[in-house]
């Protein structure tokens, strides 16, 4: 039997993955590895930078390339340092919604504005997974978390359009259900020569799933049913779009 090519890009000694059963972050890791495989990129010339959170562990230590695991929210400025000092390297940030879009939100929009060539993948499970299910900057209104037991009273960020508006060259959003599209988007991002942002909507069955009463498979079904393409979304009213996930290239 032929071995899955993904293994060529993983640090075998770090397997099995440390994620909870059903976590979407492993799907994102797989999509990144497949995209690199399809592009036949040289892993010796890639640097993966992450912040703190479960999503910060997608690349560190699992991807078999140079990895830099930083502080909470600071992956993007660290990556900016790498890319500015070493333009010859392909710099990729993979981190969470709490990390990139909440504590590190200012770095995200400024990196998009500068349009420095790098790929940023936000594994957005709409919650702080690692610390036990607190509200993040992307938790939707009404969702109950351990810090909002009555339901979040604020809106969450609509990340992809936010980063687009900040000046990113390429922005896409898919979910862990849309793996093929996700791989294609990662490939486009990795080949790009500006700031590329991919919002990879992910599931956290342990915390978010528990709160909404869904297991991993149901969360994926939910992603499938609630997703609408950008094209379709353009024809829908704001009311019709409420609770939907707009996917595609922005």
């Amino acid at each position: 039997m032929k071995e899955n090519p993904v293994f060529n890009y993983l640090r075998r000694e770090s397997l099995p993955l440390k994620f909870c059963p059903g976590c979407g972050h492993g799907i994102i890791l797989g999509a990144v590895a497949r995209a690199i495989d399809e592009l036949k990129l040289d892993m010796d010339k890639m640097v993966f930078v992450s912040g703190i959170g479960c999503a910060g562990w997608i690349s560190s230590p699992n991807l078999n390339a140079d990895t830099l695991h930083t502080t909470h929210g600071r992956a993007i400025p660290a990556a900016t340092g790498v890319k500015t000092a070493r333009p010859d390297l392909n710099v990729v940030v993979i981190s969470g919604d709490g990390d990139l879009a909440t504590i590190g939100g200012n770095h995200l929009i400024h990196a998009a504005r500068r349009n420095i060539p790098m790929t940023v993948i936000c594994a957005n499970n709409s919650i702080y997974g690692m610390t036990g299910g607190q509200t993040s900057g992307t938790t939707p209104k009404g969702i109950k978390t351990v810090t909002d037991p009555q339901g979040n009273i604020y809106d969450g960020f609509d990340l992809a359009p936010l980063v687009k508006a900040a000046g990113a060259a390429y922005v896409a959003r898919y979910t862990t259900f849309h793996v093929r599209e996700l791989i294609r988007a990662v490939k486009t991002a990795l080949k790009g020569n500006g700031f590329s942002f991919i919002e990879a909507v992910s599931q956290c069955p342990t915390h978010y799933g528990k709160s909404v009463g869904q297991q991993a498979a149901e969360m994926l079904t939910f992603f499938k049913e609630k997703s609408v393409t950008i094209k379709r979304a353009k024809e829908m009213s704001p009311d019709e779009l409420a609770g939907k996930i707009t996917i595609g290239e922005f």
Partner: protein
Amino acid sequence: MKSKREAPALKEGRYLLSGNEACAEGAITAGCRFFAGYPITPASEVMTQIVNRFPEVGGKFIQMEDEIGSMAALIGASWGGIKSMTATSGPGFSLMQENIGLAIITETPCVVVNVQRSGPSTGQATKVAQGDIIQSRWGTHGEHQSVVIAPYSVQSAFDLAVEAFNLSEMFRTPVIFLMDEAVSHTRETLVIRGGYQVYDRINNGETPPFGGKLVPDMPRFGEGKKLLITGSTHDSKGERKTSDSRAQNDLVKRLNDKIEKNREMLERYEEYRTEDADHIFVSFGISARSAREAVDRLRADGIKAGLITVISVWPFPDGIIADFSKRVKRIFVPELNLGQMRTQVERISRCDVIGINKVNSEPLYPSEIIEEFRRHK
């Protein structure tokens, strides 16, 4: 390969520069080729000098969105193999603390200039103070060592900036370059004689990146080493160890030992007229300049006074000061705070230690130091 223009550091000669500009020039001489910063008084001229000079030497500059980002960028650039620096003042230095800890635990060489100004908080932004002595030692959390170098003149700002980079490369640790507003804005003659020794990190691949000897060899990105660099506790290969008590103990102890066991090389100070002194001043930065003048005036009156100018604020030069405390009558510690360095001197001294302190955003004048000296003598 296209040739990069090579290091036209300042040519031999005499220059009229500010402390901030001299610090930037010293960094360039040391081989600094990456700078990330965010504007703040009274440190901004370090950045503008770098901006003006970097094109000539092939350096990379980026103005970041804040000081947290500047510090993060330094770490990324340094692992790219480029010597890196930032410059800030109190509010920015406070923001940098978490990532200074990241640089310490990942053993990332870089230089962080902190030009002290009046605090706390915004305080008096354009005015001098020396209130960050303890912060520069313990600003970031957890058990750790800090290497902190304080210049006291334009010449020393240049010379010691080279040294700060050398120590940072030699020990694979961030070095804090602790200036103060007065040193940073004073214009004086800088004499460049050439022959500066520049030390680069060792990248022989003879040790794993985080172990094998007190200061392990340091690889860089893009060499196919598949580096694992993390602010989490890690073993010698860089593998994360989140609950292995031995890994935690080994890492913290080695990071401590690489500084503690090299104190001889790290403890720096300058002596002035101390040979036969009955009374010595222990000071640093701009206050040491005033103390030096005070020593001369006291000597003219027949009083045997001397001065130890502390260069390595951390590790504090315990040895020399402990020795002096056995043979002098009193040690006076002039400083622009309410006793941050004095408590260090007290910790190791056998004689009386008297603070000469000022916190009104003005420097200590020699006459004030003499007055206080005479009150206690």
